[in-house]
């Protein structure tokens, strides 16, 4: 018997995704460790002390990647939640659910490291300016999504309600991104943009970008592992999971 051809949608089947992700996750963890080690080494040992902020600026190497991840993951979560809703694609909804806790964690880290950086540089842990407030709203959107999908017992209805919340909430992401342009904020403007030369030393930029890739690898590993867990939880009744667990338990 011929095996079915491999198509783009092949991995939309939860069982195939489970296998593929299981193979990929260790590589993503390894990439996370290597990239984080390289980024932190450059950030702490190669990048020079900042002339105005001293060494407090070194918080940037995790603050900016965490803030970028918080926004990117939200859009990815809303996208897959929307796909899951529109096309009744189960795996897409599971991925959306798997992203939410990791996105919430990065949002919290962006706020936490920002507060700690704000104290020595601005003289305050927190201000209600546009950038900080909209990022705090992002955290509430993540937490609201998690609470909503867990509060509804019917799994597919929960996915749909979550998708609506995620899609409506995505309007907040451009507000966060452009807040430093649209309003006068205590928060500084964009350090790196597509249209202008970066306003920082190249070693600092290198460290920040490598840390960003480390966060990407981390997010893939964490989200894929959580998706695998959700797949097993939801498909525990199906034949392939039974075969899988028998294979594991009675080798």
């Amino acid at each position, binding site marked *: 018997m011929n095996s079915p051809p491999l198509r783009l949608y092949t991995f939309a089947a939860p069982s195939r995704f489970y296998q593929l992700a299981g193979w990929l996750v260790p590589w993503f963890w390894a990439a996370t460790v290597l990239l984080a080690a390289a980024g932190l080494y450059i950030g702490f040992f190669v990048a020079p*002390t900042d002339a105005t902020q001293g060494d407090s600026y070194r918080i940037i190497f995790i*603050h900016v990647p965490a803030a970028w991840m918080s926004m990117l993951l939200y859009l990815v979560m809303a996208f897959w939640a929307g796909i899951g809703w529109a096309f009744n694609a189960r795996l897409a909804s599971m991925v959306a659910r798997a992203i939410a806790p990791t996105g919430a964690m990065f949002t919290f880290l962006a706020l936490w490291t920002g507060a700690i950086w704000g104290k020595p540089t601005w003289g305050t842990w927190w201000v209600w300016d546009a950038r900080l407030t909209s990022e705090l709203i992002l955290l509430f959107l993540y937490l609201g999504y998690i609470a909503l999908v867990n509060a509804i017992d019917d799994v597919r209805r929960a996915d749909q309600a979550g998708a609506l919340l995620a899609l409506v909430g995505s309007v907040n992401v451009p507000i966060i991104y452009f807040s430093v342009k649209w309003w006068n904020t205590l928060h500084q403007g964009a350090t790196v943009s597509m249209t202008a030369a970066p306003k920082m030393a190249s070693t600092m930029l290198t460290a920040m970008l490598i840390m960003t890739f480390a966060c990407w690898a981390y997010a893939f590993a964490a989200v894929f592992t959580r998706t695998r867990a959700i797949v097993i939880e939801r498909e*525990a009744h199906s034949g392939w999971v039974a075969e899988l667990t028998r294979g594991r338990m009675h080798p």
Partner: protein
Amino acid sequence: MNWGSALAFFEMGGYGLYVWGSYGVVALLMLAEPWLVHRRLRRALQEAARRDSGNEAES
């Protein structure tokens, strides 16, 4: 090299508490979450196996 000694590294030019207060929480959460997701996967597989053996016993 930026730091003359290990102590200078930990002091971070007087910002040690801020810098390590940031990276400490980052490290804590980025170790806790992988542990939690792998535990969730392990438990899901155990639960599925338990349910499967229950079905076999019935049939």
